[in-house]
């Protein structure tokens, strides 16, 4: 469980995140949605202590991220941000192996090697394991960074727009992978722009706008036509497909 209490953030007097109190359930996939500039990335980065919280507290499975040692937190939560573009000249296998750093500090044991091999397999990276990152396509590099976070094997996985650069098949494979993690008892927070990925896979949806949380609940509760039309200030319809909502924006 992630407990957020009174968390806020401002940059030079401009409020990026209004004081937020929120609980993210364990063992579920929570999707964070909202228009550009809603504060989704800021919130996910504050939770993952990429930026130090200026006010308020975040507790991940009881650990206060402001006071817990970084190495301890790295065994509790893994984070993948959007700044994966500036490519380092590492091989894919070496990058994924760095995901084990919080566990082995550069001295990998059998468990570490197994986790790296599993992550390479899960993200279909085995044929690319010896390739340098700066020779990969955007989508391949994105999968390599995802595999690094996956290899960390943490109870919480926090992903900021992980579907960037991924084609439909790989995006779907990622969501199915996250669902498998969830079924194994792990928890996921994922920032999504494509609402149908939230509709199709999330257990819990948090909607943000203007630096504040405006709605949270199950996909059926949050992903409604009036709520989404107001959230994005454009006309959106919602149908039901199977047991899940289906968001439609190409209206006649």
């Amino acid at each position, binding site marked *: 469980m992630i407990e957020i209490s009174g968390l806020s953030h401002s940059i030079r007097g401009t409020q990026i995140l209004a004081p937020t109190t929120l609980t993210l359930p364990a063992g579920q996939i929570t999707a964070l949605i909202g228009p550009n500039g809603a504060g989704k990335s800021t919130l996910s*980065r504050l939770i*993952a*202590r*990429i930026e130090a919280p200026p006010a308020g507290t975040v507790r991940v499975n009881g650990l206060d991220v402001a006071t817990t*040692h*970084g*190495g*301890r*937190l*790295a*065994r509790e939560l*893994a*984070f*993948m*941000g959007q*700044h*994966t573009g*500036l490519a*380092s*000249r*590492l*091989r894919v296998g*070496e*990058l994924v192996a*760095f*995901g084990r*750093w*919080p566990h082995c*500090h*550069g001295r990998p044991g059998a468990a570490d090697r197994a986790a790296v091999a599993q992550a390479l397999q899960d993200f279909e990276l085995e044929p690319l394991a010896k390739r*340098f990152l700066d020779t990969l396509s955007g989508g391949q590099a994105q999968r390599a*960074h995802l595999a690094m*976070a996956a290899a*960390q094997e943490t109870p919480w996985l926090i992903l900021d727009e992980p579907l960037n650069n991924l084609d439909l098949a790989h995006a779907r494979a990622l969501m199915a992978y996250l669902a498998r993690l969830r079924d194994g008892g792990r928890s996921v927070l994922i920032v999504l722009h494509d609402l149908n990925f939230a509709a199709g896979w999330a257990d819990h949806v948090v909607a943000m706008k203007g630096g504040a949380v405006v709605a949270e609940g199950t996909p059926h509760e949050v992903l409604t036509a009036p709520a989404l039309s107001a959230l994005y200030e454009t006309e959106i319809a919602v149908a039901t497909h199977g047991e899940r909502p289906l968001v439609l924006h190409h209206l006649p």
Partner: protein
Amino acid sequence: MPTRLLWPLAAAVLGLLAIASLMIGAASFESGQTSAETLLWVSRVPRTAAAILTGAALAVSGVVMQQIVRNRFVEPATAGTPEAAAAGLLAVTLIAPGAPIWVKMAVAALAALGGAVLFAALIRRLPAREVFLVPLAGLILAGVIGAGVTFVAWETDLLQYVSVWLMSGEFSGVIAGRYELLWIAGAAAALAWFAADRFAILGLGPEAATALGLNPRAVLRLGLGVVALVTAMVVVSVGMFPFVGLILPNLVTRVMGDNLRAALPVVALGGAIFVLGCDILGRVLIHPYEIPAGTIVGVLGALAFLWLLWRGDRDAG
């Protein structure tokens, strides 16, 4: 060729060069002017060790700086660090001329650290995508500090004294007792190898480093410390050698990548081969006179750098 064979090969080449270096010089072992044993231990061994330590430490400090500022086109020698060390030496010479040598070294190292910190702070404000702004900022910083040092040295009649540090380096003055500070530079480079994974992770960006549980600022401080210590000890002992920290890291990472734990030993050996090779060339080209190793390093290094830039364009295109 598998990259794991690179370091034994480089070690073998360096070994051969070291043997050559022990046998070549203005004085021959047969002349009888000095005993062969004295010549070997007082002059040849220290000179060979000095060239190896200088090359290895400078090449490693180049890698470290490139990782912590995330730019392949910088090295301490083009970022104002040697000039800052010289400024520190000049200041301590003016303020406390009688200070013991270790005080002067400490001040030089601290000043070099100040210069490196200033450079790191300066480039934080530059847009990351403008790759060539970072080395340019380094050159400007080096120019400004260097001009200040030259001005003060001119005013105080110490220009000749200062020029020893800022002109291209050489090893002809190296004898036992006058190069041992370079072992500190070597130790700092060895320390960098123990922190190699940390530097490689920092090269992924502060965000990724934080996510993996590292404190990016702590790794940055460690890197700046290594850079400052290496630069100060080299400048004080033998003067500055440009391009060593630029060429070797770029050549080696092209083949081996940024997995520094594997690449750093090869970078260090490569730097030692380059500088020792240039020193040997300098001794034999116009024998019995000498061309300073730093001059040859500068000429060959500039050519190699141009080639790297040209090749880089072709790879990208």
